[in-house]
């Protein structure tokens, strides 16, 4: 089962996305800030991370950079309310698969995650 980690400060978003991808055959974990996310990634070895940008304790970009130093092949999809091309560029530079802005198209989120999951299954 593909392991998906949902990182968002908003609890209801985590709940909703968790239930949404559980229904689609994923093993889903949640974290509410970057620091918590890093420890979950370490302990569970998440395949895909949905990462929010604005979070307390540790924001999305810092988390992303930290993940890159950890030498993981975790795929990261940014899901953020911040519409900023510079930030999107920087995220892409750090190997983010997709930069999705909230409010998002649910099909787009679904399609992106499914595609990445397919690639992981094929590789793995």
């Amino acid at each position: 089962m593909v392991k998906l980690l949902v990182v968002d400060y908003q609890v209801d978003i985590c709940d909703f996305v968790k239930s949404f991808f559980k229904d689609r055959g994923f093993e889903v974990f949640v974290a509410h800030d970057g620091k918590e996310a890093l420890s979950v990634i370490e302990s569970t070895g998440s395949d895909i991370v949905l990462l929010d940008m604005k979070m307390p304790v540790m924001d999305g970009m810092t988390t992303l950079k930290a993940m890159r130093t950890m030498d993981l092949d975790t795929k990261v999809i940014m899901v953020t309310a911040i519409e900023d091309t510079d930030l999107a560029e920087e995220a892409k530079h750090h190997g983010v698969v997709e930069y999705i802005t909230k409010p998002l198209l649910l099909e787009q989120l679904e399609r992106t995650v499914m595609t990445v999951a397919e690639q992981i299954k094929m590789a793995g």
Partner: protein
Amino acid sequence: MTADNNWLKLQDWIVEKVNSTNGALIPMDSENMVQREGPEKDYQFFLENASRTMIRFKKPERLIRMIVRIIDEQVKVSHTAMLVRRKGNDYFTLIDSKGSEGMKIPVGFIRLTFENSLIRFFNERHNFKLSDTGAVDYKEVLNLIQRDETFRKDKELSTLASMTLKQMELLKANFCVPIYYKKELIGVFVLGKKLSNRKFSRQEISFFTTLANDVAMALSNAQLIEDLQEKIYEVHKLYEREHRIFIHTAISLAAAIDARDPYTHGHTERVTQYSLAIAEELNEIPEAEEYGNFKETLHISALLHDVGKIGVPDSILNKKSALTKVEYEKVKEHSNTGAAILYPIRELGDIAKEVRAHHEKYDGTGYPDGLKGSEIPFIARIIAVADTYDAITSDRPYRQKKMSEVAVQVVKDNSGTQFDPIIVSAFLLAYRKGKLLQGA
């Protein structure tokens, strides 16, 4: 500016509903009855309060939140949400959502564009081919797709319907109620499944569609007021640059308001003319000196004094027979509504005071505040005289045209009770000079 977009209708609806259901507003099956002290009272109270608050603060979203909460509490469903298209957006997003963990769709998280099949289905009104209320039940549509031959033959419709069902699955929706304003889709009620696993009853469905209409009304009215305020604000900005153009624009705005009331056609224009003529005879009076720019403030106040009539239904404004008490109460709200429209525009705050008080009476028996004598703003006292004079001299539906002498007599007779005696004497001076004839 028709009766359609009248928020007062919402209050009508509530009053009517309350009366017709003896206070039990929600058509509930017994399984959904909430075991609580007087839930129907709560509901009535909340909704009435919400609609008032909404009117006062132009916040239809409060009403929506209230409605979503009530549905969530009283008609037990897994989740309830409201999709709305905000002004300037080309997509729909959730403005409120309630429900159990995981079921609730977070507010502002998703968006649905016009390409979304659910939106297309409702926007292009294909849903009306399936149900007369326009509401869509997931299971019913699924049945049609799977079992109904004629339905399946309509390839385009059945394809769109199945794509719509996919969208409903994404939203975990079992039931959707579209919200239209003038045939344009402005929102969708999204409902999960009933916790009892039963179908929604016909009563519940009609209740949801009624609520959808109210939301449409609330949203469009808020929009109307906002647009009007924007317009007035623009007009005022213009004033700072070009004074003459400002007055002209205010006149056309006033004319637009006037045009709704066929029986008092030209009323605003005449009241403005008479008010200015009366003011001519009030030169150097201390009350006038207290205004930064007396003539100016009077002119604009007179032009906008009935702006609140935008909130009175056409059915009342156009009524040929005498008004009922309830209808008259509605008409009376226009001075308050007018002030509410003008208050938020800081530069027009003083005008708002005058507009609010233009139906006050000198002896304190007027409305809305029952102000007395010098408590009534001076300009409002002038407009009151001009307003009454015009009401009598022009051909109103509920009154035969009277001679201007009769009108003058009425004004005189009410000096000191309804009107400020000083203004009445200025009025008489102006009248004798022939300045108070129509078009003088």
